[in-house]
């Protein structure tokens, strides 16, 4: 009897990710999977479901809600978690929110620092998680290209790119002292195309914002921003026009630029991606705050 003993690249990546996810469940006391509701998170969540089938995933899902996410994201999050039996934790920096912090009034840097980074760090401390999964990929951004799969964080949740633990074969060092933690990136070796391909093959549900539709948009500093709720500054309201757009990444609605597109299927999205001239993070306003800004944010504890 002849056996097919080759794996395709996607099957190999899937096996690698499942191995990483199980390793964390086995070696840490209190892991959590961070969920951004984006396409990468959706793949990561499916991989976790696969890793423990036919059982339940032994750790919770946590969403850091900046309170400025697209409404469709929140609806999708709640529905998915319910339908798939996930224990969902939602945390926000309510102090800053109640003080009125937002991207329009405080700018993207202050908003991100308080509503995303600080909210995340507070939540990690609150639950004393010793490992947190993130859906980041190495092909997304230059500083991520150098990060380990098990990325050590000190007691202040800081990443030190010059002092990373050597990481060999598939043997991961999960030892930490009290207060320290590991960020784990099971999708490290996936590319954007791999993610789309996997979503297509596995029929993984994703937020409809990824598909093109007529949406009310306004142009701010060269970015097409969708007016998702009534917090858009009043002076911008008259400038709203309906445009056929979709989103390549999802984040806070005032900070995530839409792209004009007619792609309504995954095949069309991939086709657009293959012929497009912009890489996916260009629609993220925060990457352009300052030079080497993602690395800076990572050092401070943001993903």
């Amino acid at each position: 009897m002849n056996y097919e003993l080759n794996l395709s690249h996607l099957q190999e990546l899937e096996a690698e990710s499942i191995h990483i996810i199980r390793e964390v469940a086995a070696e840490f006391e209190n892991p959590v999977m961070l969920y951004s509701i984006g396409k990468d998170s959706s793949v990561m969540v499916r991989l976790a479901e696969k890793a423990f089938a036919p059982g339940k995933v032994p750790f919770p899902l946590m969403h850091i809600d900046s309170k400025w996410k697209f409404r469709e994201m929140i609806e999708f999050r709640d529905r998915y978690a319910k339908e798939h039996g996930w224990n969902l934790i939602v945390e926000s920096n309510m102090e800053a929110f109640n003080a009125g912090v937002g991207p329009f009034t405080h700018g993207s840097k202050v908003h991100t620092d308080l509503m995303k980074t600080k909210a995340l760090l507070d939540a990690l401390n609150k639950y004393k998680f010793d490992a947190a999964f993130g859906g980041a990929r190495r092909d997304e951004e230059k500083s991520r290209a150098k990060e380990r799969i098990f990325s050590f964080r000190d007691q202040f949740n800081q990443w030190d790119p010059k002092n990373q633990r050597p990481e060999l074969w598939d043997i991961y060092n999960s030892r930490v002292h009290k207060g320290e933690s590991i960020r784990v990136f099971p999708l490290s070796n996936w590319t954007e195309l791999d993610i789309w391909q996997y979503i297509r093959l596995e029929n993984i549900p994703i937020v409809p914002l990824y598909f093109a539709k007529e949406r009310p948009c306004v142009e701010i500093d060269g970015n097409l921003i969708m007016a998702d709720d009534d917090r858009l500054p009043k002076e911008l309201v008259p400038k709203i026009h309906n445009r056929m757009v979709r989103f390549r990444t999802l984040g806070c609605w005032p900070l995530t630029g839409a792209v004009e597109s007619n792609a309504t299927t995954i095949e069309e999205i991939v086709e657009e991606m293959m012929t497009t001239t912009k890489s996916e993070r260009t629609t993220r306003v925060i990457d352009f705050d300052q030079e080497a800004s993602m690395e800076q944010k990572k050092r401070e504890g943001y993903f």
Partner: protein
Amino acid sequence: MEDKKLDIKAYLDADEKKDLLRLLTAGSVDDGKSTLIGRLLFDSKKLYEDQLQALERDSRRVGNAGAGQIDYALLLDGLKAEREEGITIDVAYRYFSTNQRKFIIADTPGHEQYTRNMITGGSTANLAIILVDARTGVITQTRRHTFLVSLLGIKHIVLAVNKMDLVNFSEEVFTKIKNEYLALTSQLGIEDVTCFPLSALEGDNVVEKSPRTPWFQGTSLLQFLETVPIDRDRNMQDFRFPVQYVLRPNLDFRGFCGKVASGVIRKGDEVVALPSMKKSRVKNIVTYEGELSYAFCPQSICITLEDEIDISRGEMIVRPDNLPNIGRYFQTMLVWMDEEPMDRGKQFFLKHNTNTTRATIDEVCYRVDVNTMEQLPGTDFKLNEIGCVRITTAKTIFFDAYKQNKATGAFILIDPITNNTSAVGMIIRPLEMDDINKADVPTLDLKKLGIGEEHYEAIEKAMKDLARQGLEIVIRRPSPTPNPSSPKWEVGNI
């Protein structure tokens, strides 16, 4: 419009079937390594335009290339600290694909003090590209990189003789370097070596064959990378299944999850659990999608057995007629990765597959001069030093020689105080000292100690916590469901 949709679908269907080649590049800052990778990425048309725009901006500010030229190296050096120093300080991973294959490049620096990064980047590589400058040929650093590649057991080597434009694409220069290099690799026992004359800066023989080297008979580098066969590199002979996670969603299901480290397993195959030596048969191979009739490395699967056998994380399922070495003593190559030098008085944590145990370095047999490959008298290793040592573990481990089986021959040593990964090892052979096996492993006989059964579960849980710390304690207790006719005693080895 319909046609177009079919096209992209056909593209995705073909893309889905591509395999994955992981490659390591090694060379110094001056060999044009980053330029070569930039060229592979650029010319395989996977660079997005806006990344190029950012590049042009950065080039004007800190670029090392001449005026008006794109510095491909800037694409790769992501970290701020490195840009300032003008060198790549760590491993960077890059991704590209062609119509044939997907590629992951681990880009590592060539400086001596960063040997550990090359070891890190190369551990999962199928193939290594070693760069030399055509003007200088094989230098000390080339020997060092080649030694490290052979130590890691990377099966395929490409020697990229770069900067051929600076030696007028001379066949004589290329042949001289090639012969010198082949002499080196045959000495190290590396079989598959292919040499290319390149100019990464000008693109010769990188993606397309260059008209400037009509004497060169081979293909372009990229064509070679797209076609080199890697499917026979994995060990498909020796089935090894280190149990990673035990899945018990309900009382009727006990699944052993893990990644097949090597070999193939079929439904119905006879297996044995180590170290208990209890036999059973594979009842099912369970995945999210459903059952599989067989599985092979490196698939992540879940196995159920016909019989109720207690197997924990760190134990191993194998075939009864093909066992690994079972023991606590072995001789191994060791690469020291820590700023803090080796301390033989220390008890390290040794992580091997899914098994963690305490371990000591008993003896340094010799140290290797990575430049000359000479064996030097054994002394404690410092950062980036490599040599041969003898190790004793507190728990029994199930291993093979790294040369036969990477997945079960590799381990890491973790410092118990700093938690750093202090060293990494490639096992050479077991040592014959196992006669006093387990004499020094403490044993708790729960019945003898007069401990009530209601406490057994709590004690087992505490022992499991200790096992996570790498401390092995054997518990002796009566079986939880004793058979009245013949009281069965179970020796739990956690």
